[in-house]
């Protein structure tokens, strides 16, 4: 295991300069996610157009893996339908689950950069916090999401 497999350049970059970062005043939906183990905290904002994600932003603080993952997620989901978003979550989940076959890199795009996390079981929750929060937000949940 090389540390550079975990902290790839793109992750370091998205951690330093997260995309779609900061609150959204006119969000249709927003939801908080919290990882009590390490104190990662994020708020996800969504603007929907029918069943399509018109805009998505996030805010909060966390480790490099959680911030980069949220940043990459917002990039990947803008303009996607809700069904496409859920399908991508499934692919992403497989990417991080040891024992699963390697997912199709074409489907995951830049998200594949987080593949290294699968070798660090304690860090998987960092990478999936934003996705679980998204999933709950799309389900219409209003209670903050916790990874514990």
């Amino acid at each position: 295991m090389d540390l550079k497999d975990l902290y790839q350049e793109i992750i370091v970059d998205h951690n330093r300069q997260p995309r779609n970062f900061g609150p959204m005043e006119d969000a249709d939906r927003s939801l908080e996610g919290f990882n009590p183990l390490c104190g990662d905290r994020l708020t996800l904002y969504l603007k929907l157009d029918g069943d399509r994600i018109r805009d998505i932003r996030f805010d909060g603080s966390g480790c490099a893996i959680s911030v980069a993952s949220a940043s990459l997620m917002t990039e990947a989901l803008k303009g996607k339908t809700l069904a496409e978003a859920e399908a991508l979550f499934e692919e992403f989940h497989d990417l991080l689950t040891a024992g699963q076959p390697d997912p199709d890199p074409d489907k995951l795009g830049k998200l594949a950069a987080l593949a290294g996390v699968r070798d660090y079981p304690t860090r998987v929750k960092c990478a999936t916090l934003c996705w679980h929060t998204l999933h709950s937000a799309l389900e219409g949940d209003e209670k903050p999401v916790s990874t514990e």
Partner: protein
Amino acid sequence: MSAGTVTALNPGPALDVERIRTDFPILHQEIHGRPLVYFDNAATAQKPLAVIETLDRYYREYNANIHRGVHTLSERASTAYEGARGKVRDFINAASEKEIIFTRGTTESINLVAQSWARSNLKAGDEILITAMEHHSNIVPWQLLCEQIGTVLKVAPINDRGEVILEEFERLLGPKTRLVSIVHISNVLGTVNPVSRMIERAHDHGAMVLVDGAQAAPHTPIDVRGLGCDFYAFSGHKLFGPTGIGVLYGREELLEAMPPYQGGGDMIKMVTFEKTLFNDLPYKFEAGTPHIAGAIGLGAAIDYVAGVSLPAIQAHEHDLLAHATEAVSAVDGIRIIGTSAEKAGVLSFVMDGIHPHDLGTILDHEGVAVRTGHHCAMPVMEHFGVPATARASFAFYNTRAEVERLVRGLENAKQVFS
């Protein structure tokens, strides 16, 4: 008692750390291809061969239930178990073995006091005073009690060095204060609290005092009678003993008057469906088959620590802390959390631009084990405005060379994120 006054204790000859390290088999392994540096001692300490072999011998040679068999093994197990109680008594200078209750650990010891002494002696409106640097285990049991009987939890604030503001502490002591429950040494900040003075002030107001000694027991001599505390709690596993065993010390007259904490076997003299006669101290508080091996293992750990000499341990850890504080502070972008004048071997820090969790993973890659997170003290994190810290905590088997490895790991983390 504290790191700051260690030199006055005349520690005697310096520790032979290389020889001591041979007593700890776990230290001699590689993690990610590098020799392990174990700096997570405040979470749990490693076990010397003396403890490991004691547990092994118990299970191989005289495993039996205690206090009830007339057979030889039961007698041997009972003798060893009660022998361990005697060692604990000597270790903390309690007046009697009746004052030594074996529990699962500090957490259970505190819960015992909350649910037995406090629940039966306090009433709605009575106040319990803690400090802002408490571990969750010295916060939540009191919150539960407050919900049950309407007592009120008061919190003495800390300053930016991570010390209790004594004037505020004393201002909060009043006629309604019935219990003061304070940590001896902070697990996050390393602060050594002036517990003697705090106990004295609390007693001036007629309040009882419980001291959470989870971090103190491995690092400083404990004298419960010298301190004058009413209860003292600590865990075996932080003292180089097994997990799942801990101690509650309580003054005999208090324990005598307290109702049992749990009901079951061993804590009774006679049971009928109409009435049950409870057992004498300390058995009244030890319902069910206890962690026999754990208690005997704790006794072995106490013997081991006594053989090394606590003053020498303190001097060595003081040197390590001073060296680590200087070396880690010198790394660009580091902020030390907890800079009390009186500190034990705990170094919490944050680094600009790198989350503690990432630091933890990178250091682990270098073979350096530190704790990252909120350390079960979320209010402390809030006070310092950080979500989490990285924490290196030292034991007497750690070396200056290992501190260098930590510093190199921090430099490497900067490279990864540059």
